[in-house]
């Protein structure tokens, strides 16, 4: 479905991604794990069209999208929930959701999807008129995922959704990811929380300073000595 080949990303003199390749099959949860600064966000941002200075190919449903504008990428069915959630704090929960649907013009469909998101996240329904900035960290994460779902994506990319959340909430977030996947969305998940991510994922890639060093099924990597040493505390 989504295929990245030999992707390089540069920031001025910094060579952040040094030729990574990965594949996200339809309906799967694929995770990209790695330490802080490994280049995980750069990979997602490159796919989303936010990074201009890049090399290599990114194709989606067989079409090259490496030069496509972010707006068009959203329209084509790939959406991203960015690191740090990036809720609009001065806009209401409802307005944040409508922003997620900005690329759509089917009003009825949007209303239906708002109901659907509220079913997935009943907390958001209760808080729909509240400003995004007044939500707790966990609620903001739900809003960020819900907002991304509002674009009717086929592929949803999540950049560290568990970042900064209490352990109990982290469990919830991964449950949400599984649920979203069950609802038919393909997921590309970036995480530092390797254990939870590997448990949730069908397939996983390990990224170290801009290079993919390992890949395999989630449960295989969970059992891999190198992964256990580096990311799972032995």
């Amino acid at each position, binding site marked *: 479905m989504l295929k990245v080949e030999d992707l390089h990303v540069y920031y001025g003199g910094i060579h952040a991604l040094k030729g990574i390749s990965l594949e996200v099959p339809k309906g799967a949860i694929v995770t990209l794990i790695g330490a802080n600064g490994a280049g995980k966000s750069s990979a997602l941002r490159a796919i989303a069209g936010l990074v201009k200075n890049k090399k290599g190919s990114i194709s989606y449903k067989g079409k090259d999208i490496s030069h496509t504008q972010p707006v068009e990428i959203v*329209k084509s069915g790939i959406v991203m929930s960015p690191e740090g959630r990036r809720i*609009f704090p*001065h806009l209401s929960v409802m307005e944040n959701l409508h922003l997620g649907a*900005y690329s759509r013009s089917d009003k009825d469909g949007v209303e239906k999807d708002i109901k659907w998101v509220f079913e997935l996240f009943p907390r958001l329904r209760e808080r729909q008129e509240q400003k995004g900035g007044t939500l707790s960290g966990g609620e903001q994460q739900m809003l960020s995922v819900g907002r991304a779902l509002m674009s009717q994506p086929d592929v949803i990319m999540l950049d560290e959704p568990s970042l900064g959340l209490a352990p109990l909430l982290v469990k919830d977030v991964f449950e949400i990811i599984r649920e979203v996947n069950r609802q038919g969305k393909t997921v590309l998940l970036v995480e530092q929380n390797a254990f939870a991510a590997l448990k949730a994922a069908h397939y996983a890639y390990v990224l170290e300073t801009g290079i993919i060093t390992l890949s395999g099924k989630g449960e295989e990597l969970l059992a891999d000595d190198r992964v256990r040493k580096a990311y799972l505390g032995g």
Partner: protein
Amino acid sequence: MNAAMFIQHFLNSLTLGSLYALIAIGYTMVYGILRLINFAHGEIFMLGAYFVFWGLTLVHLPWPVAMVLSILVTAGLGMLVDQIAYRPLRDAPRISALISAIGVSFFLQNVAIVFFQAIPREVYRPEWLENPILMGDVRVLPLTLFVPLLSFFLMMGLVYIVYRTKTGLGMRAISRDLETSYLMGVPVNRVIAITFGIGSALAAASGIMWALRYPQLQPIMGVVPGFKAFIAAVFGGIGSIQGAVIGGLVLGFIEIMTVAFFPELAGYRDAFAFILLILILLVKPTGLLGAKPEDKV
């Protein structure tokens, strides 16, 4: 001062304040979205007034038609300025766009001198705006009712666009977080262009009404009102539309009322705006309604 005179001064203040407010809105919206001070905004105001003059004298259009057409043409011009002078510099350091803005300002002034010549021109004013209405012993110029009323309706229209339409939602999103707006699928460049269009339309409306109030056109006529409206926007809290309206009105009232109550200060009239600027920068640098620097529009 009797009540009748006070009412006249009050209406004059409201008129001048509305004109400043309409210009200030354009400064504040563009700043809110791009963190750019559009120094060419005063020239947009000036061109709006000249376009009406053209419509009236060259094509002999009726007043309302000339006014609407001028507003539309000026809106288009504002969008064109954005496309040509600012859009190529979106990713450049902010100072580059600022310098470009100053360049556009001089350029438009000189274009106006070439096309309209530097000599001041008289503007024809429709009679129904000229003849004072008598209300008891109060003589009211229809213009001093017309300007605040039209300004009010324009501002209501603006509030509707910003708070009730999808494009307005996009504007409020971009002003807060550009990158995430891209991720939401907001067509950023289009929304920015529309912002320039709206700001320029309001400046044109102000310029046209200014020309009715002070019926003389000159290529430099936008400089002083533009500067004052900018100060009004800073006073209200640049980035905040409500702030721009309040700032414009406050400045209008200060100018008219000070001169009304202390006629001997009339010569310092243009200095009031700058005194206001210095005071607000000393007391509350973010302006009346300006919150944290990132909390705009």
